[in-house]
């Protein structure tokens, strides 16, 4: 615990939904729900207007539609969120290099070193909030405290569009009246167990002797929660949490058993992964394909290249090859592809080998092509351009996407804007 509330937690308000409202003024003031719109879709984000109807993130979309039939339901535009996130992270980095991103829309900061430039943590919070409003067009809430844990709780209490800096000495006054599930690590199971002790609030929890908690919850959990209830949290900011993988996975609205269709989905996903690698300035060596079956069994297969790549044209064939070694007859519920073993662009020197000589020219050409596609999509949107994916059996098909029409093979479903989308890829 510190003397000054120099741990800050910044959280963008209803992030995905706010980006949609920012980009389409007609959505402002209306309940906006971003998420999967297929049969198994879940809500990724809900605007504050939608929350008034009881819509929450992670709720099945079908349930949300019952609660809020007049809401605007949109598929996620991952690239737009990522772009906004990057701009916000940049603003935070201008305050301190000690930034620990938790996800696209929230991060911890350690501002102890920035106090000389700013009057107090409150001034830093307002500086970041006004910069984000001005440069990115979004609202953010900031919490500040002497510990990381309380900073996160404070930002939650400050929402929406607010700041709460907990003054040193006031910590327990803020913390103790709160329900116990506000603490990290208190899920439904723990909550139920604590309920048996009559524990409702964090204050109740703090009055239970540590030994009793250890007896009830086990050593690690008991000690941890006891410490948190007294605002004891020794964790510091861990900056430079490097991106370990770039992945994309989707849950299908119906289990898929057609190998050619799955191969094509996979190619489409590798294009997303390639584009995200390039936009993040990363390239990776190991390609992994993940398949979840109808019975939730999950298998992964991976392969490692002898060079770094950020090209869908290279990731795709490897991924397809991995998929072709997997059984799919029972039906595939979820398909995903990821690239790991990442290095940043600056490290993209490549040791050439006697074998790579011939590939090299091809790779350069491929790279130029994919960068051109990136540029078109940046300007006209993701669906402006699709690729004709060559499938193993030599047949050529093209996805119909937005303005580009390719030949449709018989029996193939048209995939337009309203295509079923499950969870979008994690920015893990």
């Amino acid at each position: 615990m510190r003397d000054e509330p120099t741990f800050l937690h910044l959280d963008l308000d209803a992030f995905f939904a706010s980006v949609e409202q920012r980009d389409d003024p007609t959505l402002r003031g209306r309940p906006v729900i971003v998420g999967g719109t297929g049969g198994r879709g879940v809500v990724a984000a809900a605007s504050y207007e939608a929350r008034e109807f009881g819509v929450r993130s992670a709720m099945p979309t079908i349930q949300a539609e019952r609660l809020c039939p007049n809401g605007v339901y949109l598929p996620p535009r991952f690239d737009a969120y990522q772009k906004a996130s990057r701009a916000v992270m940049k603003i935070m980095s201008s305050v301190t290099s000690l930034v620990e991103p938790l996800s696209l829309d929230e991060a911890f900061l350690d501002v102890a070193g920035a106090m000389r430039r700013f009057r107090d943590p409150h001034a830093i919070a307002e500086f970041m909030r006004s910069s984000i409003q001005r440069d990115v067009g979004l609202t953010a809430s900031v919490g500040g405290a002497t510990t990381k844990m309380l900073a996160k709780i404070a930002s939650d209490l400050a929402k929406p569009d607010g700041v709460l800096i907990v003054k040193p000495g006031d910590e327990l006054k803020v913390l103790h009246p709160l329900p116990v599930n506000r603490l990290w690590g208190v899920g439904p199971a723990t909550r139920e167990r604590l309920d048996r002790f009559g524990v409702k609030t964090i204050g109740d929890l703090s009055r239970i002797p540590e030994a009793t908690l250890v007896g009830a919850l086990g050593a690690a959990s008991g000690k941890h929660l006891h410490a948190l209830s007294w605002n004891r949290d020794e964790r510091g900011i861990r900056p430079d949490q490097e991106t370990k993988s770039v992945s994309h996975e989707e849950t299908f609205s119906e289990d898929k058993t057609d190998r050619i269709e799955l191969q094509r989905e996979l190619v489409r996903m590798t294009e997303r992964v390639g584009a995200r690698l390039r936009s993040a300035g990363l390239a990776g060596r190991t390609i992994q394909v993940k398949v979840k079956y109808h019975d939730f069994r999950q298998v992964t297969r991976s392969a490692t290249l002898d060079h770094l790549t950020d090209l869908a044209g290279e990731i795709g064939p490897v991924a397809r090859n991995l998929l072709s070694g997997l059984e799919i007859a029972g039906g595939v519920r979820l398909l995903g592809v990821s690239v790991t073993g990442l290095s940043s662009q600056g490290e993209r020197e490549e040791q050439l080998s006697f074998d790579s000589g011939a590939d090299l020219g091809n790779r350069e050409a491929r790279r130029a092509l994919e960068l051109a596609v990136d540029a078109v999509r940046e300007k006209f949107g993701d669906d402006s351009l699709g690729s004709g994916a060559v499938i193993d059996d030599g047949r050529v098909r093209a996805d119909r996407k937005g303005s580009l029409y390719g030949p449709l093979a018989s029996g193939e479903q048209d995939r337009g804007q309203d295509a079923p989308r499950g969870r979008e890829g994690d920015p893990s």
Partner: protein
Amino acid sequence: MKFRCERDTLAEAISITQRAVAARSGAMPVLSGIKVTAADDSIELVGSDLDLTIRVRIPAQVDSPGVSVVPAKLFDGLTSRLKPGAVTFEVTGDDAKISGGPAQVSVRLLPADDFPKVGSPEGTSVSVEAGPFAEALRQVIPAASKDDARPILTGVLLAATATGLRLVATDSYRLAVRDLPGVGLLTEGQKVLVSAKGLNEVQRVFGTGSITVTLGEREVAFASEDRSVVTRLIDGDFPNYEQLIPDGYPNRLIVAKDALEEAARLMQIVGEGRDSTPVRLTMSSEGLELSASAQERADAKETIEAKFEGTDMSVAFNPQFLLDGLAAIGGEEALLETVDPLKPATLRSTSETGGDFLYLLMPVRIS
């Protein structure tokens, strides 16, 4: 079984044979030991991981003959710590009592009956001179691959040429070719692929004198009077390496080998911790400039006097690969021939005999 011998000779014999002892014994625990056979007036030590077998015979006073298998690591460690002088080795039951000076150690033995029959190929034997053969191995082995995923490249190709023997190794990033004129190890048209790891032991074990080479069906044995190294042959076709060597080079750089070596070492240190930090060679009529840059850590450059003919150009290499090449070529001056920054470069010595060795090296592409 009981014998006495000199600590120094025993310790040396153990350290040589130990290099063939399996790091992980896996299915055959007995292979984590060194087999000791006492007979007449000598003892023979054998270490093997089935792919590689090393035997060393040393003189000893044998009181009673026998065979035992001693855990290799323990045997090596304790023998090297005994006082110089005589060492006594005596087996009672399952244990060996090893004593030297005031120290006495009792070691539980491994079951000698389990030790497999290893490494004694049959075939015609040829004699070669150890010195030049070991030198040729020293030159080509670093270029062989250590990646077991590409087994063929973990071998050294021994091929008969019109004038003698040719040794070739490549890990697909560099290629080393050495000709040994007048060495008739193989008959015309014959070629074999031998484990580089095994040949590395050949190179270390035999310094001078002559070695007898026996080429069997699946193994090849290299033996002197008191030592032998038996290593396996690798199945498969070695890549067609000759087509990799460019027909001609527009750019020729001649530079003092030591100066280039020292500068390359400096560049390597700048990028230390990351093998991939390349050293960039910028060549012009002004000379040669080496540079390396490890982002946000260090930068270095050094200019070296050099003779350059050709078009000014810049090419980057893995510094270790460059250093391996420089260590392999003989002579005082190095000749580096290049085509462009993406094509293989050749490193040779300018000395008269330098023509017998060629080191071909793929650049690192800097994007």
